[in-house]
């Protein structure tokens, strides 16, 4: 596995799944209809609480902004899935539909790994 990002993790849980980029409510609806089981949602806006209908099905969430006090962090914790907040990506690769892992690291940090 290759490290491709680092952020603040909301729960000390590891999650693996297919990463899906969510940019809009329409993306949420599409994934809802397709089936979100075991997916990891990547969002850029930690105010995106419209992940609601797919949240119980997701394995995890990755967000490029926000921290533990963001609405997304609080709601994802309610559904007991790890969210990697304020994530800095260390790759320019297109990660959509790639297998990734969220893994807790030390001192509240978390890593995003690409499963190759």
């Amino acid at each position, binding site marked *: 596995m290759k490290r491709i990002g680092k952020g*603040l*993790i*909301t*729960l*000390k849980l590891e999650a693996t799944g297919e990463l899906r980029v969510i940019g809009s*409510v329409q993306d949420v*609806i599409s994934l*809802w*209809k397709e089936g979100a089981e075991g997916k990891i949602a990547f969002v850029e*806006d*930690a*105010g*995106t*609480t*419209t992940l*609601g*209908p797919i*949240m*119980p099905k997701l394995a995890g969430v990755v*967000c490029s*902004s*926000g*921290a*533990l*006090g*963001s*609405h*997304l*962090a*609080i*709601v994802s*914790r*309610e*559904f*007991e899935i790890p969210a990697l*907040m*304020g994530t800095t990506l260390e790759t320019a690769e297109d990660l959509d539909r790639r297998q990734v892992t969220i893994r*807790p690291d030390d*001192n*509240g940090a978390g890593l995003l790994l690409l499963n190759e």
Partner: protein
Amino acid sequence: MTENRDLEFLDRIAPPESYRYGGKASGLVSLISHGFHVPRGFAIACACFQELITLNPRITKTLKNINAAVDPDPILQGAEEMQEMLQECTLPERLELKTKKAFTRLHSQSEHNRGYAVRSSANIEDSDTSSFAGQATTTLCVSDLEAVLSSIKKTWFSLFSLEGLLYLKTKKIPLTDVRMGVVVQEMVDADVSGVMFTVDVVESDSDRILIDSTWGLGEPIVSGRITPDSFVVQKDPLEILQKRLGSKRLMAIQTAGSESVGYSLSETPIEKREKLSLSDEQILQISKIGIEVERRLRRPQDIEWCLEGENLLLLQARPITTLDREA
């Protein structure tokens, strides 16, 4: 028999009656009753919104249909119909008059024209099992009565927005059981704002506190637009264990013109980005308050706070939903 009030000032609501005004109001009333500093304001009872729903059978019927729906399409269609119907509703005249009277009194007591926050306070909000975080509308820096009345409507109707409906259905909360109260409070001209968890929710450690902070208003933190500064504090003995500098790329500050108030979101000056938004002394001051809030409310709390000079005000306190322990 207790009189059922449509609207009451927060410092006049007896804690056993606070449930009438929804979860956020209940939390604020609890803080006030324990002597913590909370911005002045009033709350509108959940029953007022319920009255609006009851008078519109079509709305009740649509809610029941959405409640029963499993597939996405009927839910999406129902959500759209709900918003169309709600837009046709108006505030009851009785409530408009009471709001006008309360607002006039609140405005007369305000020392500075900083505007008002109109905040959601649903009965299922800020409870042990559901935060409803970010699902309903809060409007900041509302300047006058007309804008307050309009924002109250907006907050009411956001309960049944697509986001709100999807959250409620996902949490299996019957839509017909949900009621929306509203809180109207003075804005605070915050120098620094943030959130605090009185336990370390990541490490599941009840001996630690987590604090996030940023310059100006706290909206960029809760909305997740920024990565704030973050701190880990040990409760006993009280000691700062970790300090992490966040990027704090944006900051929200109030803007006051001659006739109106608002807030702007702008790039944080570089010298502020590179500096921690809290001193060690402030971190410990906030932590001590958090420990006391947890002790008084008898369970771990998720607290929103702000600093105006040296004055620490609490904006919200709710149980941390993923913990099952008491302090």
